[in-house]
């Protein structure tokens, strides 16, 4: 592959991976805010209002970074992937425009109100603002996933006279089976991120003996929702995702499992290192027949290995794909175990007092981000060498007029800017957490200037 294609890919991979660290938390927290606002509205219990205010501040910071890192994503379709935009823009433009128009305008319009407008709006309207933001953020996720699903499993399109794709059937494009499964899987995983972050903050306060009432609430709500979400990620959504990959992207499945040879009763590998040159797995520890069962529902099913496919349809990066899949699946399993343990402790009434488990939860919050990133790497590396699966190759899609030097220039710039942005984000969120829940509601994010007379 020519150099320019490599840099274009690296830049998109970097910017989208970085960007998605933020929306997954936004989407994971959004419904907690709605829930707490709703409880506060119904019961008048100040604890819920305090929790909603505290998390809305963190949500606001997170959202801002999500916006500024998200806008480059939309532009990059044109700047870096002009070949792809010219080829598929007539189809994917539909959902990218819908995302901006239906979802993002809703979400960004009301997020400021959610974070800073409590007194201005009164409890009822403020609850509606939270609902609008949550709805907007999940809708946004859906439209982006439809776009991605089209690249994974194109449906609803036709080809025009110039060879470009155009939309033929909007409903079937919007209700792509792949998109529905991926949305369910991805949103459950975003909830896992949200619950682990909430639980970590709860554990931090519980261990320090600060904000005990709030800590208890975060631990309880976080682990209760966390267990459900962690299970949903694996079953049925993860299971369905694996089956649809097995049906439509066989070479990807083979590479994810490091399976080089075709045969029945395929094993699943728990651990092992793919050796692509020798076409085998080194030091494998396997569960016999499990892959056949997971992919096709019986232990005897034939699972084709990479040898069954022409080499130019193999994903070119087998090793990272294999590890990404195993890191995701391994962490997902650990999340279920941890959340089960936490819920048992909760039922026994020991959740807030069992220090070892609190330590584990306080330190565990980065791992859902890692698992989600690994999951996306699995999806996207598995799609290679195609940009639109089976139709259009990745090395046809980049902007031919943009030189490698230009791309590297902007990649270096983005890396520097995002590094600074990351430091600022961690510092400011750390400050919010250290400051803790409680205190008066904020009326202005921008320092002491207060808008309009406040009672």
């Amino acid at each position, binding site marked *: 592959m020519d150099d320019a294609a490599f840099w274009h890919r690296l830049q998109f991979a970097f910017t989208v991976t970085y960007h998605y660290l933020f929306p997954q938390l936004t989407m994971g927290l959004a419904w907690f805010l709605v829930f707490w606002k709703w409880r506060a509205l119904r019961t008048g219990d100040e604890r819920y209002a305090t929790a909603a205010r505290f998390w809305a501040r963190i949500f606001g910071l997170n959202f801002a970074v999500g916006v500024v890192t998200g806008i*480059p994503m939309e532009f990059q379709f044109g700047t870096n992937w002009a070949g792809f935009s*010219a080829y598929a823009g007539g189809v994917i433009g539909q959902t990218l425009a819908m995302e901006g128009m239906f979802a993002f305008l809703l979400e960004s319009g009301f997020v400021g109100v959610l974070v800073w407008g409590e007194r201005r709006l009164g409890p009822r309207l403020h609850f509606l603002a939270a609902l609008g933001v949550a709805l907007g953020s999940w809708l946004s996720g859906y439209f982006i996933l439809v776009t991605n699903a089209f690249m994974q499993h194109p449906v609803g399109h036709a080809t025009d006279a110039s060879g470009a794709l155009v939309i033929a059937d909007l409903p079937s494009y919007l209700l792509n089976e792949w998109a529905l499964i991926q949305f369910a899987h991805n949103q459950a995983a975003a909830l896992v991120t949200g619950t682990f972050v909430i639980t970590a903050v709860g554990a931090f306060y519980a261990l320090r003996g600060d904000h005990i009432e709030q800590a208890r609430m975060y631990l309880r709500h976080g682990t209760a929702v966390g267990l459900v979400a962690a299970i949903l990620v694996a079953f049925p959504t993860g299971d369905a995702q694996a089956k649809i990959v097995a049906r439509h992207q066989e070479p990807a499945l083979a590479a994810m499992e490091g399976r080089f040879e075709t045969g029945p009763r395929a094993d699943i590998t728990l651990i092992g290192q793919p050796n692509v040159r020798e076409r085998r797995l080194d030091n494998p520890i396997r569960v016999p027949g499990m892959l056949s069962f997971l992919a096709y529902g019986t232990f005897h099913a034939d699972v084709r290995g990479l040898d069954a496919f022409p080499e130019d349809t193999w994903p070119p990066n087998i090793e990272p794909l294999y590890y990404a899949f195993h890191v995701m699946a391994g962490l997902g399993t650990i999340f279920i175990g941890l959340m089960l343990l936490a819920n048992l402790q909760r039922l026994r009434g020991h959740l807030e007092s069992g220090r070892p488990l609190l330590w584990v939860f306080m330190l565990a919050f980065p791992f859902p981000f890692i698992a989600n990133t690994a999951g996306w790497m699995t999806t996207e590396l598995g799609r290679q060498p195609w940009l639109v699966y089976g139709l259009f190759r990745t090395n046809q899609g980049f902007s031919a007029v943009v030189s490698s030097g230009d791309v590297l220039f902007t990649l270096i710039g983005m890396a520097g800017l995002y590094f600074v942005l990351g430091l600022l984000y961690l510092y400011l969120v750390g400050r919010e957490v250290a400051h803790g829940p409680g205190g008066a509601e904020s009326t202005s994010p921008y320092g002491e200037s207060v808008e309009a007379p406040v009672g």
Partner: protein
Amino acid sequence: MAELWFALLCFMLTMFIVLDGWDIGAGALHLAVAKTDAERRQVIAAIGPLWSWHEVWLLAAGGTFLLAFPRLMAVAFAGFYLALWMVLWSFILRGISIEVGGHINDTLWRSAWDFVFTASNLLLAILFGTALGNVIRGVPLDETGRFSMSLFTDFRATGRVGILDWYTLSVAVFATMLLVAHGATYLRLKTVGPVHERSERLARQVWLIAAVLFVVVSIETDFVRPELYQAMLTRPLAWLPVVVLVVAAWAVWTGLRGNDEKRAFAGSCGVIVGLLGGAAASLFPVVLHSTLGSEHSLTAYTGATSERGLRVALIWWPVAVVLALTYFFVIMRIYAGKVRPAQDTQGY
């Protein structure tokens, strides 16, 4: 159908420039109109909660562009590669400086972010002006149907042009002044106290400069693209933006001379609508004009996606716009009223 989508795309871009234009203009004036820390917080609070909402209009316009004119979007964005990345960086810096600046009550922290805020907004104004200049002047499209432009070549507005030349630079200066005037008019409407006084004074001065530059740029345009004026004269639809421009300019003039802040601001929005509308109406159907020969120009007809795609999108798109405009009115109501500098200096 292509005509309609060209109009809708121009509507989206105009919405963005009008809405985010006042943020950009007020931001570029930040250090000039606000001297104390409390005044600076006041300016930021005046645009604060809505900057991301305004910015999203550009994102939605980008999506609409890709939806309706995928080939044009691809050619244009790849061709303007470095310039667009500068826009993105400025957006990122602008967003960060608003969001993190107020979080810590420290003189050094705040003056650093106040500077970043002003500089990034000024850069955005210049970049959008340059972009407009490039669209009017044209780009070096050749027989491959693509172009790739250096930031600058020989600063002449014909042949192998760069992004910057004498013409695009003068459009950039004019557009910057226009957005600054728009921002000052907004701050005059939205604030009280010293910021209000300074904004009012600046608005009067900068609108005059913008008016003079408008005449200069209009004459320059006749040298660079004389056919645009002919197109404008023969198209009754292009007269409408001209009428809007004249009425709006009158509203700005009377609103600024008298004390009608709302009228001046409405006029300010109208001036931008009239200018962009007039430009769009006389450029149509060419979206990317070639400086190497008009046979290479790309039009809305050749760049559009299938008739079917445009028709399908017309089912959902109006619903989305109606929703968006509803949010617009709700949000404007929520944030109605003036921003006052607060007495307390403790931060929140």
